[in-house]
């Protein structure tokens, strides 16, 4: 803080200029700036410079001139998994760098302080950086029954969120709980969990879904905000399109097997050993938008489908209620209970028998009214 730029702080920590430029490039890559500026704008640039240099330069400029962004990180009905993922990211330099770009003023899990002390720090930060800080929310909010299912320091999650959101420049919901309600919202949703965007209507909310959210995606969004001062382009679910523009299926390394119709039928059959498509084992890849298949996890080492497990679709709304995890996606979400089916069948049979009886009577009447000779008297119905 204190008006120091991020670059200054990094220099104090011993990061060399060369390293700095390299990292800038990495960040640029992470937020998908490889083709920035647009091709037309590049028309006049000298061919001596590789294209990737320019975005990196842009990022470097931003890092060299802008102070760190204050962040308040709230946790509600969550498992701290998103925080865990971020802090234990396998690409420490990049994430560290990004963490260096921000100054986390409040974070329940990371703060050394606790109790009234830390609550006081939060209040102070909100005052000091009013209108500037980024609010990051992890976990869903519980407004049900006066918010008694999730309260911190005697205040309900709704209160806390609304108070913090009021002074925020923007809200980042990280993880599927915060973005779409996640597991707490799964049927029958006992706490009445709602997502952040379900509650906060007057601030830009950017959703970084996933269980947990991919750390690189989170850092990418923050870097974007830092570099451009704006939020990246969002899809209809408020997710940054650069990371959520494609489905897992679109970028899946097993996709050729799908096209060829080669599927693993169980987790230990020949197909599974051969690395065939996991569609039959319940993969939700075709409807799941996330960057798992490209960014992957553990420093680009692997992601669930690669390691042999079907995609659960964790970055989609209501994924927990989206049918059995190991049931093919084409299957209906649930089959009607046997009793319901029996009732429907019974209703059909009763209706049929009723009709049949009425029709039998009709036939009898028709026979009765059949005159011995033509021209008997008939009344039209």
């Amino acid at each position, binding site marked *: 803080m204190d008006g120091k730029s991020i670059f200054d702080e990094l220099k104090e920590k011993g990061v060399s200029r060369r390293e700095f430029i390299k990292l800038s490039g990495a960040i640029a890559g992470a937020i998908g700036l490889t083709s920035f500026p647009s091709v037309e704008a590049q028309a006049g640039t000298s061919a001596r410079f590789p294209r990737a240099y320019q975005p990196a330069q842009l990022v470097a400029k931003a890092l060299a001139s802008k102070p760190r962004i204050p962040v308040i990180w709230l946790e509600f009905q969550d498992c701290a998994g998103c925080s865990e993922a971020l802090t234990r990211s396998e690409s420490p330099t990049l994430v560290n760098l990004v963490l260096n770009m921000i100054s986390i003023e409040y974070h329940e899990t990371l703060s050394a302080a606790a109790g009234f002390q830390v609550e006081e720090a939060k209040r102070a930060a909100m005052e000091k950086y009013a209108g500037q800080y980024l609010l990051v929310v992890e976990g869903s909010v519980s407004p049900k029954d006066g918010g008694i299912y999730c309260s911190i320091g005697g205040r309900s999650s709704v209160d806390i969120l609304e108070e913090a959101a009021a002074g925020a420049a923007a809200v980042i919901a990280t993880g599927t709980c915060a973005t779409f309600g996640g597991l707490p919202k799964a049927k029958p949703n006992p706490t009445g969990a709602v997502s952040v965007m379900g509650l906060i209507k007057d601030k830009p909310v950017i959703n970084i879904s996933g269980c947990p959210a991919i750390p690189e995606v989170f850092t990418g969004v923050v870097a974007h905000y830092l570099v451009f001062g704006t939020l990246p382009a969002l899809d209809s679910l408020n997710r940054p399109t650069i990371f959520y523009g494609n489905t897992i299926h679109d970028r899946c390394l097993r996709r050729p097997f799908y096209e060829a119709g080669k599927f693993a039928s169980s987790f230990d059959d020949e197909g599974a050993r051969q690395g065939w498509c996991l569609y039959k084992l319940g993969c939700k890849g075709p409807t799941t938008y996330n960057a798992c298949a490209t960014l992957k996890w553990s420093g680009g080492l692997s992601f669930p489908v690669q390691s042999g497990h079907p995609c659960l679709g964790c970055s989609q709304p209501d994924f927990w209620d989206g049918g059995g995890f190991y049931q093919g996606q*084409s299957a209906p979400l649930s089959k009607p209970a046997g009793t319901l089916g029996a009732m429907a069948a019974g209703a059909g049979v009763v209706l049929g028998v009723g009709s049949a009886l009425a029709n039998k009577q009709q036939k009898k009447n028709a026979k009765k009214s059949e005159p011995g000779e033509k021209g008997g008297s008939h009344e039209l119905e």
Partner: protein
Amino acid sequence: MNWNDVLSFARGPLFQAALLIFIAGMLYRLVRVIGLGWSRNHVRPKKSQTKGVVMSYLKGILIWPFVPWVKNTFTKNPIIYLAGGLFHLGLFVILVLGTAHMLVWKSLLGFGWKTLPLPIVDWFAAATIVAMVVLFINRLINPVLKLLTGTAEWLNLLFVFVPMLTGYIMTHHLFFQYEVLFSIHMLSVDFLLIWIPFSRISHFVFYFFSKSIHGQEFAKHGVRA
């Protein structure tokens, strides 16, 4: 409301409701028809009726529809007959031997079976769609069909055509977002399920009545079914 919600609705509650309406409606129709009573036929048969029925099915299911030149009548309109046969064969292959659909059966029945490789099913699907288009055009231009076709017949075609087309496109991940097509696919299937008991698509049940009657009747008369 986004496509995810539409999809969940179409795969979840709407599908359930549609399935229940389908079950109730079909049973109503079956019971009603059977309940009309079956008077005994006292005619002494000329040939074995069992054999007649078996032959009737063999010709109907295995050979007849796919070999238009077997019956001279179809030299007049072989393409239409071929299209009809191909359409039904394709439908069977897709619905029973297609992986995605087998999983539906598996979830409903509790057991699955081996399926055909996707590329093969794919060819059937393409052929089925072409056949459907041919039948559609035929219904538009054939004078008899013009007379016979009402709103219900057009709805039949629509309710079958939409799932087929969306299914094909979504399997190939073309043009639209997958869940959009998936939603439309499921919605149209739900409407189809609801529609079947009210329409002549239910012929897949009554086929077995008329085909048995055909075999039996022709055996009675001593004629090849």
